[in-house]
């Protein structure tokens, strides 16, 4: 029977009430006394030298309060990359300064070089236009194409970085010789060159920030659209502005989606703080959508060659990849980890492939910074791998289901060390594949093909079986790999005197439903109704510390921290109960909200214990402090490894090349599941984005570095009409072995597993329809690309 609360229940989301009634509290909804407005001047050229910025005329315009340029920030710090990557030759990556406002040069269309603060938004906007008119920028030759960027040492995004190369990374360098030899000797090698298309994350809430400064105390407050307010505070304090951490509060209230793009600290956040200090008034900024397109960190943008060596039965022998990864004009906070440790380490997939070697060259270009977007590196790895396997099956005329199955790491092989550095704890890939095939009614497929043909449509089926790594990350491992931060999570569980509970978590919800899920968790553990448990997140002044939400880590790392804090509450409760019940501590058992002396009916309720902790009249004060509040920091022992099998059926219109997704099936293994409704919703959302990447979305810079797809008129977001109902299942569960909840994370799976399933299905449809010359079509698989491929016989 479905539970009506606690772990495993599809509890309805409590946060929905405020969102459904228009009472959400997003950054731009705030209105502050005396507030002023910031508007940024952004480069209209991809690459240019700032000759002069004349602000005299603007300073006298109505309402103008302050004007900032790069000069004002040239002596403060820069926004750093969070991971140091070393090249194959051992040299550290090249790391240019990323200033608050561009100084000396502008390096991409949208690069902010000045900001105006005025009494009203309209005045600030008019004034920013005047600054732009009074600015002289000498246009330089733009660097857009990655191959050209590394080939031309004289034309540089950053004058001090030759070849525009950030790093040339090998993973694992020791595998290289063995992989080369295996590929040379292999009976068959399948080679595929592909592009993982650049995407704009497009959270529906544009980025927004409000800076406040309180001269009386010297305190600062930043309200901002962030997925991890503590990291933003750390970066602003320690790297950019030098504001002591204890004088800066960062609040991320309701945040309207992130998908990676709001993990990072952006210069606008520093600017509103600096301006607030100067004016001693609140300074607010909200991006227009066009600004978001130009200045949010983008995702993906890999050009990859992958080679898969096999025997003639399709047993994998070796994999080698070479990738050019675009990092854009500056290094965003996770930009160096995404194409490396979140990508190369996944290149063995769920398969027992003896040797793998991954080479990634990260390239600077005159485009917006590129960083983690839902899945971050793992979609790129999965796409390369699942596409090349599909191509190999066609070349050797093998069944794609059988080939995957025979190469799977089988359940008896776990824990399993891959040749690319991960140690998978659990999994059952055969079970998820079985489940997906059963859900898809594979046996009935030929009849569906015939039915589609009657309607003039070519039907195809595509498979993708995948594994990913979540729960970022064991700090010691991350440190060895170049991370400049720890990746634990923190939680405080505060039992109030009347027995209800406040939980402060460092994880941040921007759509994931933490307020509901974390309450379920605590309710299950303490036997308290969910309605008596409050989840507090997104405010550095209320929460001990936190690393925020990304990498599907909230439940596995943040939830585990809460679980550990609850352990401490229970342990202290037992001490209090032992005293009150005049029993030995070891004899106290806690279950269903009661502390009981084992084998007796002597018991104290949780509420009685809480009350006693705050009104300690009958209490062991000699040995125990009053109060009932505990904090835990949880550092994961390993990554978690969600996995699954995705099956997609498409119909291709042979006359137009239009692809329609007819069926999308997901059989996921997320380990234990706390709220099935929310888990399914996460998968739906991920698959929706994956179908968007596969069929619609593309970020296009022209040869001058102009972003041609800079609005919803030009960038094809998936709409309700572009996607089907998805058929999702998470009943195959191999619980994670190293976190207390046995959970693996579900936030990114859909976006990781789905793009190759869609593209494989399109290729399958074309082959079945007689277009077997089509070996590959790059994403997005638009009607024009499909049609052109069909005609290119």
């Amino acid at each position: 029977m479905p539970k009506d609360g606690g772990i495993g229940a599809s509890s309805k989301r409590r946060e929905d009430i405020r969102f459904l009634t228009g009472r959400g509290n997003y950054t731009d909804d705030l209105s502050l006394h005396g507030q002023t407005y910031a508007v940024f001047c952004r480069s209209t050229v991809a690459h240019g030298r700032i000759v002069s910025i004349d602000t005299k005329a603007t300073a006298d315009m109505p309402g103008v309060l302050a004007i900032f340029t790069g000069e004002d920030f040239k002596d403060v710090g820069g926004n750093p990359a969070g991971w140091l990557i070393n090249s194959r030759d051992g040299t550290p990556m090249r790391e240019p300064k990323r200033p608050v406002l561009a100084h000396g040069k502008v390096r991409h269309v949208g690069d902010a070089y000045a900001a105006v603060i005025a009494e009203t938004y309209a005045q600030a906007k008019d004034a920013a236009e005047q600054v732009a008119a009074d600015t002289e920028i000498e246009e330089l030759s733009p660097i857009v194409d990655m191959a050209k960027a590394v080939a031309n040492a004289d034309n540089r995004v950053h004058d001090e970085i030759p070849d525009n190369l950030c790093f040339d990374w090998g993973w694992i360098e020791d595998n290289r010789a063995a992989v080369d030899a295996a590929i040379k000797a292999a009976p068959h090698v399948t080679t595929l060159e592909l592009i993982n298309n650049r995407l704009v994350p497009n959270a529906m809430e544009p980025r927004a920030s409000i800076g406040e400064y309180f001269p009386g105390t010297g305190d600062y407050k930043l309200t901002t659209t962030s997925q991890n307010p503590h990291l933003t505070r750390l970066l602003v304090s320690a790297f950019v502005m030098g504001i002591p951490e204890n004088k800066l509060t960062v609040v991320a209230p309701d945040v309207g989606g992130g998908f990676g793009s709001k993990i990072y600290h952006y210069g606008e956040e520093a600017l509103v703080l600096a301006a607030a200090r100067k004016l001693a008034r609140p300074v607010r900024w909200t991006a227009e959508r066009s600004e978001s397109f130009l200045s949010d960190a983008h995702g993906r943008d890999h050009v990859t060659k992958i080679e898969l060596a096999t025997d003639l039965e399709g047993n994998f022998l070796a994999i080698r990849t070479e990738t050019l990864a675009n990092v854009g004009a500056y290094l965003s906070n996770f930009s160096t980890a995404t194409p490396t440790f979140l990508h190369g380490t996944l290149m063995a997939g769920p398969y027992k492939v003896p040797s793998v070697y991954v080479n990634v060259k990260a390239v600077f270009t005159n485009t917006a910074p590129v960083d983690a977007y839902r899945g971050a590196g793992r979609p790129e790895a999965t796409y390369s791998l699942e596409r090349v396997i599909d191509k190999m099956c066609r070349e050797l005329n093998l069944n794609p289901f059988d080939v995957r199955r025979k190469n799977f790491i089988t359940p008896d092989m776990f824990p399993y060390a891959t040749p690319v550095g991960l140690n998978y704890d659990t999994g059952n890939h055969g079970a998820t594949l079985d489940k997906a095939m059963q859900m898809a009614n594979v046996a009935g497929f030929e009849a569906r093909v015939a039915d589609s043909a009657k309607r003039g449509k070519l039907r195809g089926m595509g498979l993708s079986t995948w594994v990913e790594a979540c729960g970022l990350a064991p700090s010691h491992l991350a440190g060895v790999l170049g991370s400049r931060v720890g990746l634990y999570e923190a939680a405080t569980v505060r039992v109030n005197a009347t027995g209800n509970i406040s939980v402060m978590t460092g994880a941040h919800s921007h759509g994931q439903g933490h307020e509901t899920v974390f309450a379920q968790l605590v309710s299950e553990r303490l036997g308290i109704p969910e309605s008596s448990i409050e989840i507090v997140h997104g405010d550095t002044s209320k929460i001990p510390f936190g690393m925020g939400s990304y990498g599907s880590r909230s439940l596995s790392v943040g939830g585990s921290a809460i679980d550990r804090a609850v352990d401490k509450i229970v342990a202290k409760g037992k001490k209090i109960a032992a005293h009150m019940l005049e029993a030995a501590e070891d004899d106290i058992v806690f279950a269903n909200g009661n502390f009981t002396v084992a084998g007796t009916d002597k018991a104290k309720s949780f509420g009685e214990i809480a009350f006693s902790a705050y009104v300690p009249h009958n209490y062991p004060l000699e040995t125990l402090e009053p109060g009932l509040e505990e904090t835990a920091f949880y550092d994961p022992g390993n990554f978690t490894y969600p996995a699954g099998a995705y099956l997609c059926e498409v119909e291709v219109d042979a006359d137009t090349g239009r692809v329609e997704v007819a069926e999308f099936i997901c059989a996921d293994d997320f380990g234990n599941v706390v709220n099935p409704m929310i888990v399914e919703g996460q998968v739906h959302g991920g698959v929706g984005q994956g179908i968007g990447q596969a069929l619609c979305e593309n970020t296009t810079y022209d040869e001058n570095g102009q972003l041609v797809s800079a609005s919803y008129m030009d960038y094809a977001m998936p709409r309700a009409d572009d996607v089907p109902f998805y058929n999702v299942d998470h009943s195959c569960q191999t619980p994670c072995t190293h976190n207390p909840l046995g959970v693996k994370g579900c936030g990114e799976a859909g976006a990781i597993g789905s793009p190759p399933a869609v593209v494989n299905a399109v290729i399958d449809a074309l082959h079945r329809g007689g277009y077997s010359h089509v070996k590959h079509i790059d994403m997005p698989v638009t009607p024009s690309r499909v049609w052109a491929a069909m005609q290119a016989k």
Partner: protein
Amino acid sequence: MTKVTLTVNGKSMSGEAEGRTLLASFLRDTLGLTGTHIGCDTSQCGACVVHLDGKAVKSCTLLAMDADGGNVTTIEGMANADGSLNTIQQAFQDHHGLQCGFCTPGMVMSASALLAENPKPTESEIRHYLEGNICRCTGYHNIVKAVLAASGQDANVMAAE
């Protein structure tokens, strides 16, 4: 500046607007009704949908002055008189039709306009009608289910689950 007066959610409200002030900004910044959201600058996303004189409109496409004297319903005016969620809002909660909640006001306003003109829409009619509302979180699955449910149809059967 010109004085603009509207009936909003049954109450008369007025404020000063510049010639260029959009209805969306007027509702949010002047009247303080921040439930109506702004997600784009090209009239594509639908986060700003409100009802003006009974019709769903993108409030970012209208000047506040052009709406002067009009009767506007926003998300803040959708709940039942006792404050409880109305049928559509309740269906969105029951079927997890929202995640970050940013597109949600526009979705609810569009869905309610759809059901007013077509009380029992098919799945494809719903998808077609909601084309002007972008959601980045849900993949639309549960939004479509919620609208089916709000129309009294069995959403689970239609979503083949």
